[in-house]
């Protein structure tokens, strides 16, 4: 009975017939292939529901069927969070080099840049939320799994220092697979560098809101992402230090499905809030207002 219910839903994924005409150029006698233009439909990677991309965009890339919060890139996140006018980007040209001459790193960087059109795994800058000025850093998982090398560490540190100097609140959206292995020790040191900058920011009374998005693990999780005065996560976001597979191998047990999710972390006291994407901007604005930081702290 339930099966029937689910099957019915799939009927929404029908393809408009007029699109068929556009697939001209097929060989004579052959039936024109039914093609879906690139990007018209999107499939939820969690529940498999297929829907119009436009509908999904309107829903802030949250699956209307299962509530899965799909990963956003940094530009999408900025557009969704900040006021439309007045974003000033910092250090947009800062790029990674290959300081250790690590095998394959230079070509991997190039490949990531051409794939994403981004220079590095974080965008930093200054903008406003409901008129409240903020310094923001937004990480980009699609670039090199959001890994932190020298550039990510330096840009975050400069953003923190800018917030310290201008006495503005700081907002960081994290998402990362951890330290960037190809820069080995230099990546590791970025954890200390960013944390030390946050300590100075904390000393002058700066407000830092850390938003955890899916997934935030390793060196980013174990440095600035965990140091917010307030830590918020999106529903379902994976947030933890060690990877699930490594832990399962260590303890020789299967972990529960919800292990390291936002809800799991909330239950274990590691988060202040889990906030739906639709409510995120309003929640941030409210928090900024509660800290009365319109004119700087």
């Amino acid at each position, binding site marked *: 009975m339930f099966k029937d219910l689910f099957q019915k839903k799939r009927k929404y994924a029908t393809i408009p017939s007029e699109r068929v005409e556009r697939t001209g150029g097929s060989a004579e006698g052959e039936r024109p292939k039914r093609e879906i233009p690139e990007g018209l439909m999107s499939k939820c990677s969690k529940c498999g529901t297929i829907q119009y991309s436009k509908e999904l965009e309107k829903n802030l890339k949250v699956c209307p069927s299962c509530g899965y919060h799909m990963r956003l890139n940094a530009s999408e996140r900025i557009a969704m969070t900040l006021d439309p006018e007045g974003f000033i980007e910092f250090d947009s040209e800062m*790029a990674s080099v290959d300081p250790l001459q690590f095998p394959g790193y230079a070509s991997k960087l190039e490949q990531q840049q051409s794939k994403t059109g981004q220079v590095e795994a974080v965008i930093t800058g200054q903008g406003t939320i409901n008129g409240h000025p903020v310094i923001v850093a937004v990480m980009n998982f699609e670039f090199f799994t959001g890994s932190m090398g020298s550039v990510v560490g330096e840009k975050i540190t400069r953003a923190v220092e800018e917030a310290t100097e201008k006495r503005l609140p700081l907002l960081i959206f994290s998402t990362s697979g951890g330290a960037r292995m190809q820069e080995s*020790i230099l990546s590791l040191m970025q954890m200390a560098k960013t*944390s030390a900058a946050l*300590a100075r920011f904390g000393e002058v009374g700066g407000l830092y809101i850390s938003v955890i998005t899916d997934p935030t693990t390793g060196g980013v999780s174990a440095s600035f992402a*965990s140091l917010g005065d307030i830590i918020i996560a999106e529903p379902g976001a994976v947030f933890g230090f060690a990877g699930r597979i490594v832990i399962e191998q260590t303890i020789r047990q299967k972990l529960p499905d919800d292990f390291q999710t936002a809800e799991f972390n909330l239950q274990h006291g590691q988060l202040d809030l889990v906030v739906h994407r639709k409510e995120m901007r309003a929640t941030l604005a409210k928090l900024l207002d509660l800290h009365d930081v319109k004119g700087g702290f």
Partner: protein
Amino acid sequence: MAGELPFEMPLLEMRKKIAELNQFGEEKGIDFSDEIARLEERYRVLEDEIYSNISPSQKMHLARHHGRPTSMDLMSLIFTDFIELHGDRLFGDDLAVVGGIAKLNGTPVTVIGQQRGKDTKENILRFFGSAHPEGFRKSLRLMKQAEKFGRPVITFVDTKGAYPGNTAEERGQSEAIARNLYEMSQLAVPVICVIIGEGGSGGALAMAVGNRVLMLEHAIYSAISPNGAASILWKDASKAEQAAEAMRITAADLLEMEVIEEIVPEPRGGAHRDYEETAAAIKDALWRHLQELSGMDCAELKEDRYLKFRKIGVFAEAEAELISAEAEVQIVD
């Protein structure tokens, strides 16, 4: 001598040959002294050659040598009047971290070390030197205590990494590491850290935010273990040796990148050959650096530590921006 590593085998074989010749000569009453002297000369040449060209992957094996002195071995030789203090006051007492108060040449200091076990039984108790959050929080408690009483902090780093377990995650492994980085950067007393064996990842760094970071000659320090890197890069953890060569994990590499301040020499063949000599070299370095740092006031110590980490990182940007960036760093306070 026990515990030879594969790269030391030619030396072992030669020693055997010399011993055999000696014995044979004695038994038969033949004088082989010329021959033995020649062999011993060749042995010395070979020894020089082998020990002056230890590769990164050979160092990885030395750093993990089962006989290598642990934090407690070294502490007992370097300090006097040690009294161990336990617990994080929040959850428990993590035996992967030991700490307490001791004297270095008569000066009270707080000493904290990551502690491997000497055998399987002890390793299970000490989680192979991989701390849970309570281990990092214990170390932070002792550091804050040191700060209150104006004692310098000395840490010994020797871990494959923070413990990757479900209970560690539930209790906030990420937060515990991050909090240590944050708080250590602000300690108002001198902090000196020594990487004595394996410095693995965030678990090592969580106890290594010092004004001075020293490293034993054959210790290694990296963002991910060579085994971990190999399994990501080549989907094969057994290629750790290959990864070790690429990752720049040796003390000489890190000195060049200004991640560490000094390399502490080890006895020929590694720290496991002579604990006393190793401890004496560390003690000498610690005392020298402590003397230097004792001239700084609290603000200078914090500034010194901040700038040490602030300047690490290699990247490219436009020339003009670089200049303004340097100016920015100086303004920030």
